[in-house]
């Protein structure tokens, strides 16, 4: 698989000036809202500590909790399935739907089903799949993946949405009022809710002690998807299990505060037993998670509760847009999740970061995101995933910087620091520095030269 070129993709996003400016402003606004609501909770840091430890406990006892959840869910009358990978997952969903003659599936937002590329799989089987979260619906109609895990269409402006809706659901192309556009989406979606034979949701959490599936939305679309059709399918990653309802309180207190700066999502819904006369199927999906659990430097990435706070705060993400990461998971969390799926394809992503550490410090479950990004760079280097020019430059720099005489000779020989800068830094993307920045002025002498003249004691 070809390497994702994040920088190249980002340059196109930045070139769309209005989109980039809005994107940066909107997500920074979410970060500030998160800061303000954090300050309303004196125990915020204690909650982060608890959330982190509860997740680490759950992951270090994952097999037991999955079994407990399965037992409880079955007692509740749900059917539990296990999927090794994306293909397995899609097959299971397809079979459940086929056995019941389902023609239309309404679904609420689920990163996992995007990860598994469920939609094209079902569409090939002739099933109409309707995304019902407004942002996700916009992305579906535009045939694009979500660009953000909480606000999937945040990279689009109202005019972009007006174009998409005009082309796909026949709205007035000239009307880009968000109220109008949202209302049109509502009217377009309502019949699907009423007539779909099956509904699907993801899960933000599943609770081992009760067998509950917990879904958080602001639109209520998960509740519409699950409470109307006679069949509710839940897709959930195995890392989402938490032990107790008491633990759920910690996570619900942090999730929407971290994500959007609101105290809670409008709807925090708990599905424990199917409605009388209806079915509930829960698919526990691995798709690489059990292997990730064994990676000493990276297993804590499984603590992620998908709040998107790391994306909102990330100065690189805000300027490059989620699609530039070329993966379902973008931003800082995407950088550390994606390489386990495809090392080569995502080998550039760990370098799409300044390692500034803001992500780590907003993460409600205290994942050391920027340190894992740093560690992934080591993995890329160890696995020969660095571009040839970069690796070569590193080897040259290594030789030069470990040999003081050669180092001084090189600077002296070129007789100007600016000549030495390209050698040392501008090894690829020649003159990348100077495209949008002036070069630094070249001083008459180095500090070394000055020191020899003014301070060095003769020996």
């Amino acid at each position, binding site marked *: 698989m070809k390497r994702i070129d994040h920088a190249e993709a980002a340059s196109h996003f930045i070139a769309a000036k209005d989109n980039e400016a809005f994107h940066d402003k909107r997500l920074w606004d979410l970060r500030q809202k998160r800061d303000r609501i954090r300050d309303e909770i004196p125990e915020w840091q204690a909650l982060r500590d608890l959330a982190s430890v509860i997740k680490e406990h759950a992951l270090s006892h994952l097999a037991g909790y999955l079994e407990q959840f399965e037992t409880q869910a079955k007692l509740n009358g749900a059917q539990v399935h296990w999927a090794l990978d994306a293909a397995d997952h899609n097959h299971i969903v397809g079979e459940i739907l086929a056995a019941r003659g389902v023609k239309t599936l309404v679904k609420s937002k689920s990163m996992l089903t995007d990860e598994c590329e469920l939609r094209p799989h079902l569409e090939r089987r002739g099933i109409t799949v309707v995304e019902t979260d407004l942002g996700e619906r916009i992305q579906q109609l535009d045939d694009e993946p979500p660009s953000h895990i909480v606000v999937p269409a945040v990279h689009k402006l109202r005019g972009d949405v007006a174009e998409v809706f005009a082309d796909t659901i026949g709205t007035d192309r000239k009307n880009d009022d968000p109220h109008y556009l949202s209302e049109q989406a509502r009217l377009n979606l309502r019949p699907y809710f009423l007539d779909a034979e099956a509904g699907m949701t993801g899960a933000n959490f599943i609770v081992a002690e009760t067998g509950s599936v917990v879904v958080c939305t602001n639109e209520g679309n998960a509740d519409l998807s699950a*409470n109307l059709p006679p069949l509710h399918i839940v897709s959930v990653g195995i890392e989402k299990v938490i032990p107790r*309802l008491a633990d759920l309180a910690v996570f619900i207190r942090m999730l929407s505060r971290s994500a959007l700066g609101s105290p*809670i999502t409008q*709807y925090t819904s708990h599905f424990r037993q199917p409605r009388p006369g209806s079915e509930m199927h829960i698919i526990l999906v691995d798709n690489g998670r059990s292997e990730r659990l064994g990676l000493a430097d990276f297993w804590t990435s499984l603590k992620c509760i998908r709040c998107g706070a790391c994306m909102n705060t990330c100065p690189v993400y805000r300027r490059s847009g989620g699609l530039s990461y070329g993966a379902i998971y973008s931003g800082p969390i995407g950088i550390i999740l994606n390489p386990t799926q495809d090392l080569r394809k995502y080998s550039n992503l760990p370098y799409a970061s300044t390692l500034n550490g803001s992500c780590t410090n907003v993460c409600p479950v205290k994942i050391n995101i920027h340190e894992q990004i740093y560690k992934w760079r080591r993995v890329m280097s160890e696995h020969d995933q660095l571009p040839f020019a970069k690796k070569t430059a590193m080897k040259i720099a290594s030789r030069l910087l470990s040999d003081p005489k050669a180092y001084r000779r090189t600077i002296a020989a070129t007789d100007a620091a600016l000549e030495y800068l390209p050698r040392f830094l501008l090894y690829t993307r020649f003159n990348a520095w100077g495209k949008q920045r002036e070069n630094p002025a070249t001083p008459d002498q180095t500090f070394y030269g000055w020191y020899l003249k003014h301070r060095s004691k003769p020996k």
Partner: protein
Amino acid sequence: MNARDTILDTVRRNQPAAVELPVVPMFDADLPALWPQFIAGLERMGGKFVEPAPSADLNALLATLFPQAAVICSATPEVSGNRPLSAVSEPKQLDDVDVGVLRAAFAVAETGSLFLSEIELGVNAIAYLSQHLICLLDPADVIGNLHHAYARPEFRSARYAVLMTGPSATADIEGVLIHGAQGVRSLTVVVAPRLPN
């Protein structure tokens, strides 16, 4: 090996060293006054709040709040409505409801949330297909925070339970907040002490 056993096997092999499960405190030492916090939380999330005179007739109040409403469906005995919930055999039949009326089992001051389960809803979809929702609440039913909420037995007995906090909302287009994205366009909490048993 089937998928289940393969997954559990790999998980067991890869589980990191055991981390102890912490005790989750209730964080209730300095809780603010419940009622004002609940109202503030609800309004912050776009909910409305009405406190009628103690003797007020709720049916009359409803007529003032929603004079245009043609179909009113109530899941609580204080309000009669004109669409009996007992006649609903399929959730989608609630699609034409203008105003749904419910009573919350309890509410959470911290977040301004209302707890509703299939017991209070009768048909779950009433809370989502109705254009507008009225939720009766007895101020005595407000509890402090989410830790207290999740200690309630209802979460262990309800088939379906929702913490509902304001109307359906979206800000997916340019961050413009819009109520009534998919579900109810408005949520109004009406102060109404429970009827004596």
